[in-house]
């Protein structure tokens, strides 16, 4: 038993304790503690990734001394390690970039609360990534929800509280369905550990008994997670939640939280119900249709939007539509595409949110387009970053967005049944993306005759550094996609 095998558990526990400790700390201390924890977690995840790559197979870690099928397990493979590393990196960068902004928006004595939330969020994300036990997953889903709610309402304005409430309600609906689904699975299989459930589900599927309950269960779980990750018809809470919370929160929420649920869904598809069973049922077609709808509707409402942050939020509705569309296509290739899109969207969306906030600050804090005119000149780095993010979203070559578009399209072509709708919708949504993102880019680079009262952008260094890192990440995903994709494939192969 290699020592590294303890890392997943360590990282989770570390985060939780970090949260507990920072409740006793002052804001700054909590901040540094959090930074430290994040760094450690990143290193640990990197180690896990390296280890699994090296051994070439995943490992399970038994909590306590109870072996399966009773005990509670943690399981780590290439994909888990990679995800954990990626999540922690994004989180570091977002916090780093949003730091100064945070000091403005959150009053100092509440600062440590913020970091409690961050720590808990990270822990729950890690747990969602690593856990091998459905009920644990449920528990951490709830923790995730709660901490996310905290992140949203940390600014204490009416908007944010209202947004938080809506968010809570929607996600409670989701988690209720999820819990029900889990219980029914337990009912049918008598297990909570993924492998065992998987085995039993296979037996059930072959014997054909409990067919309807099985379908209902799958449906409940899928829909539940879809609600929590803001798939199109259930996205109503999203724009407010992302649009009005502090910038780091928005970045983290949009790029990580929903992704955690999606990753859980992925695990359920592969490791609990089983790929063939789930695609044998037509449940995924629902996801497919909703995904397509989301791609269009999200973009349309983004076009109508007049507030840059809300616009970006709506665009992430569309992007989540992409991911579910990939799941719905129901081929290995498509799932790979989806996973890649999880990464690229996470990188791009946080970049967009943060650069947008930079532009907003350069325009006297107004988020309306009309005031953003020419802000690209006033805050150069933010302007460049935003343009990069926008281009990546539009799917321009050499950026990450292009690769995921490519993969999606290839997957679509290989699936003859759903090919044409997918391709058409891809093309259309490309145009729509182009419309609203390019409109914004042109807007921010349009010089204004009346010299704008420019606010001195003080947080330039930190901000710029973070931006550069994000851009680098984006371009890396765009250029070295081959490596990433091979990682994903190996990870998925470890799943099955």
């Amino acid at each position, binding site marked *: 038993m290699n020592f590294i095998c303890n890392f997943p558990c360590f990282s989770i526990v570390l985060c939780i304790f970090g949260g507990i400790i920072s409740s006793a700390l002052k804001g700054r201390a909590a901040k540094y503690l959090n930074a430290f924890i994040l760094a450690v977690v990143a290193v640990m995840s990197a180690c896990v990734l390296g280890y699994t790559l090296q051994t070439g197979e995943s490992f399970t870690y038994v909590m306590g001394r109870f072996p399966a099928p009773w005990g509670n397990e943690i399981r780590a493979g290439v994909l888990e390690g990679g995800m954990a590393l990626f999540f922690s990196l994004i989180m570091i960068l977002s916090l780093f970039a949003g730091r100064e902004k945070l000091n403005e928006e959150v009053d100092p004595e509440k600062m440590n609360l913020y970091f409690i939330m961050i720590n808990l969020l990270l822990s729950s994300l890690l747990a969602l990534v690593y856990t091998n036990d459905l009920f644990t997953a449920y528990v951490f889903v709830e923790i995730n929800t709660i901490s996310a709610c905290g992140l949203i309402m940390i600014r204490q304005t009416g908007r944010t509280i209202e947004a938080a409430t809506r968010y809570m309600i929607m996600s409670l609906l989701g988690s209720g369905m999820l819990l029900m689904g889990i219980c029914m699975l337990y009912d049918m299989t008598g297990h909570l550990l993924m492998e065992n459930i998987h085995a039993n589900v296979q037996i059930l599927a072959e014997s054909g008994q409990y067919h309807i309950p099985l379908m209902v269960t799958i449906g409940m779980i899928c829909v539940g997670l879809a609600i929590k990750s803001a798939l199109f018809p259930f996205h109503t809470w999203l724009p407010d939640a992302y649009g009005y919370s502090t910038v780091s929160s928005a970045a983290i929420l949009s790029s990580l939280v929903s992704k955690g649920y999606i990753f859980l869904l992925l695990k359920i598809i592969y490791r609990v119900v089983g790929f063939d069973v789930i695609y044998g049922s037509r449940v995924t077609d629902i996801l497919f249709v909703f995904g397509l709808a989301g791609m269009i509707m999200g973009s349309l409402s983004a076009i109508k939007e007049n507030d840059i942050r809300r616009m970006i939020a709506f665009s992430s509705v569309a992007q989540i539509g992409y991911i579910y569309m990939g799941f719905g296509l129901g081929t290995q290739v498509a799932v790979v595409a989806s996973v890649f899109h999880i990464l690229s969207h996470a990188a791009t969306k946080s970049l967009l949110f943060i650069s947008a906030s930079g532009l907003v600050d350069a325009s006297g804090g107004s988020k309306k387009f009309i005031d953003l005119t020419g802000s690209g000149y006033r805050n150069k780095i933010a302007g460049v970053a935003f343009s990069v993010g926008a*281009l990546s979203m*539009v*799917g*321009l*070559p*050499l950026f990450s967005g292009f*690769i995921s*578009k*490519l*993969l999606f*399209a*290839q997957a*679509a*072509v*290989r699936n003859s049944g759903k090919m044409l709708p997918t*391709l058409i919708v*891809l*093309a*259309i949504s*490309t*145009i729509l993306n*182009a*419309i609203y993102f*390019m*409109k914004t880019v*042109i807007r921010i*680079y*349009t*010089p204004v005759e009346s010299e704008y009262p420019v606010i001195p952008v003080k947080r330039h260094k930190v901000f710029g550094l973070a931006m550069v890192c994000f851009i680098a990440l984006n371009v890396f995903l765009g*250029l070295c*996609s*081959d490596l990433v*994709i091979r990682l994903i494939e190996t990870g998925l192969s470890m799943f099955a």
Partner: protein
Amino acid sequence: MNPIFLLVVILIPLLGGVLIPFLPFRSRKQFEIYTEVVVIMASALVFLLMLKRPSDPFTLIYFTGDLTISFRMDGLSMVFGGMIAFLWPFATLYAYEYMRHEHNPVGPRHERSFFCFYTMTYGITLGIALAANMLTMYCFYEMLTLITVPLIMYTMSREAILATRKYMYYSLGGAGFAFIGLIFMIVYGNINFQYGGTLNPDLIGNRKNLLLLIYVMAFFGFGVKAAVCPLNSWLPQAGVAPTPVTALLHAVAVVKSGAFAILRLTYFCFGITFLRGTWAQYLVMTAAMITIVYGCSRAVKETHFKRRLAYSTISNLSYILFGATIMTPLGLTAALAHMLFHGIMKITSFFCAGAVICQTGRTYVTQLDGLGKKMPRVFGIFALSSFALMGVPGLCGFISKWYLASAAFESNQVLACFGVGALLISAILTAIYMLTIVIRAFFPKQGFDESSLEGIHDPGLYMLIPLFVFSAVIIYFGIHSVSLLDFLTKVGNGLI
């Protein structure tokens, strides 16, 4: 030569352009010299490469799987690249004098950035010319769209920005559909250009009609840049750009790269054996014919000088497409010939228009009375170019028309014969809209007072030198095109 030079020749203008805003130029002179040197270096290298062609491609990046960014120089690239390389230095020279007169909203650095993008566009266009596979071409195609955006909205006037948006939406949307074609090539064949097409027959099976549909999609997708009906309304609107842009980009580089892409698509990806005689061919050919007539008739109605030329560009581009859609080797030859010759003729006439604008500030045809006496050289050359456009024998326009027509008759298709009819109708319309200008300029109405034209005279050498050179070329190729056409015939038969 070493294949690496294929990359170098693209990088020279790109990097040279990027540096322009950062280099400390003491005087305008230095800056002009620098730019000119960069451009000429690139052109010289292109011609060198054409003389000593590197046989094997150069691969820059590996995307996923077998998708690469790689460059190769084959016959088609030689034609397109050669044309670009010949025109660009002169256009730059012209731009120096023109941009002095152009209204400059932001400041001296703005003009620098104009030349920065102008030079970078050169590199991008070369990239399109030298692309060895469809993915590479697609990437540079997208980049071309973006890099030209700042050029179009140089004046930053409201209409300029509107035009830019339109241009961007159209192009990116078109690229979205071209993208579908790309995907299909990836799946149903391979993307490396190869004369005669790369579709894999045993993959096609019963999907023939589907693939034809995709071809049509991709045709119109690329056709957006080639301004094929009904996707061409962006081109006249983009005429608000400074004339060097309208002349070089919207008469040669950008629009021709659209046509070039269609040639690649038709002859090097899907392959004429697959397409000939199918409904797809008839569809696209009809579209081309409609555009030919449509563009001319709009040009006759238009009274804005540059916009009229833009409409004529629309119809002439469809001459090229018509040649392409005949789908015989001779057709390709004819298309290439017209690509070259129209490039020269149209840039000449645009430069004349630009000279008029920057000497007199007159933009409408109705304002040109009697200018022929004041600017004899400019209008003499303009008359020459319009005769060439009409296809008077002894000037180069006739040659390409001749080849187009003979290709049409060779192909034994009734539709093609009607196409010849379309060519002639557009020729008479061309006569109408060009000669009315010439007559106005040289034969003003009786009792027209010369005094209103006091102080108007021919522009300086920067503008005249390109004009003289181009008109010399027009005449030369009009009376001695044999060797060139032999080369083009070789290219058309895929021998080079």
